[in-house]
């Protein structure tokens, strides 16, 4: 039951995201760019942090 609810919620989020992307893509190219761009900025920044941890791990094992 719990899984079904989770899948349902996830599906709703995905449908909403697709709908938003379609509307924004059709009428508001810059809004679309903001959605994609902000997501990208967050992900790149998170990737920077994850890379930091990797560098740290490598360094501690003496290979950096």
């Amino acid at each position, binding site marked *: 039951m719990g899984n079904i609810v989770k899948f349902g919620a996830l599906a709703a989020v995905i449908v909403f995201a697709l709908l938003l992307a379609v509307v924004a893509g059709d*009428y*508001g*190219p*810059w*809004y679309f*760019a*903001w959605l994609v*761009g*902000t997501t*990208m*900025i*967050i992900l*790149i*920044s*998170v*990737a*920077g*942090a*994850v*890379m*930091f*941890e990797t*560098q*740290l791990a490598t*360094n*501690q094992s003496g290979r*950096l």
Partner: protein
Amino acid sequence: MPLIDPNVVDLSRLQFALTALYHFLFVPLTLGLTIMLAAMETVYVVTGKQIYKDMTHFWGKLFGINFAIGVATGLTMEFEFGTNWSMYSHFVGDVFGTPLAIEGLMAFFMESTLVGLMFFGWDRLSKPAHLAVTYLVALGSNLSALWILVANGFMQDPQGASFDPNTMRMQFNDFTALVFSADAQAKFVHTSIAGFVAGAMFVMGISAYYILKGRNREFAARSFRMASVFGLVSTLAVVTLGDALGRLDYLSQPTKIAAIEGLWHTSAPPYAPWLIAALPNDATQSNSFEFGVPYVLTPLVAHSFTTPIPGLIDIEQASVPRVDNGIKAIAALQEYGATHSAESLATFTKYESDMGYGFLAQRYAPEQDVNLITPALLPSIEQQAVRDSIPNVFVTFWSFRVMMALGFFFIAIFAFSAYYSLKNQLEKHPLLLKLCMWSIPLPVLATEFGWVTAEAGRQPWTVFGWLPTFQSASSHNIGYMFFSLAGFALLYSAFIAAELYLMFKFARLGPDQHDAAVHHTPADKSISAPIFAKPGFANKSWE
């Protein structure tokens, strides 16, 4: 109709400009820091490392200090439309008020309700639930900016409404045209991401301070890494959008773009130079001095090599027929208001699109009544009206240049910072770190100049082409204005003093001291090790 005392109009403008600029000292940080907090907490939830939670906590605390004043001073703007710009509110409230109301319903409520949970809900919510709250706060603050800039977009390029002579105001008739107006779109993205840059610089600058002092190194190095990468990508996006906005202004507000470029006479493509520096003289309508790079202006503004860019003097003279038509429109409108005759309505409809220029002329008409303009008076009134139809060039020209120079400076500083952070060589470059520290206020400064460019360049209109600024204000007694200005000066100075005092206090205290009591779990083992154990590196200190 008596003219509103020009001093009252000027003081109302001064008050709005000062309170808006003041409010905007805090907004960019809110827009950017909420997104950065979401990014930091994401790393915490994904990796489970305590230090990212500490980061979210600490930067969240500084965000909170800033957010409170941002909320408080934002209320001022909303009040001022009613208290100081009653004619404006009456004239466009039907279309301009709507995005403000939606902002409250959709965005501000969410942001402000959930910000309480974000600060106080750490122990009461599961990790993913708290992360979702943080994301919703970030989304809320940016959605808030969206609706405000949709409203602002209407002032710049009125879309989605038309003038209704029965109610004497602009009435809303197209929701999608309003929301998807090109100006609103580009301005939202430009402003929101400019906020990201401000947030990134703030985090990067304070982290640089810790690295320079050699304290909280694990904390600072990680914060610096995230902020520098975040800032670099954001700055590139801001500059791109700045170009898009310039192009839109070229299409919809030729007076603004000509003022930005200090262009008095229509340019001769392709040679036309782009002015790096100039001394525009608004009285003589010429540049006392100018220095530019040839062949740059046309492709930069028009994205073409052959299109001439209209200059201000030529735009003025081209507006003379619009003033004539506008006078007819205002006269017909006044008659329609009194008689509701079909004839006057037909005349008005014919000249409706030049109505705003009629208001500009009305100011110089005897007793502010366009019916009293005689053919002998007309030529001088036409010239006075068109002289009023362009913005102040000096202010627009220079505020744009300061903003732009800062933008390119940010690209450079974020590029170097990200590069050395990725190579983990920050500590070898104390000068860069110092520069980061001193650059903290610059992105906020750049957004302030951006606001001045956009709004000073919009003059003399509050609604571009429809309603002049001098006619938009409330008809107050000048004493009222002194009362409110004095109050704002007093309160706002006290606030900024308190804010800076607390910001410095908590930034100096750092994450350890203030968070010591909330560490429920012992810190991660991995972070107690020196970050980079190259010989002689880790122990280096620049204190």
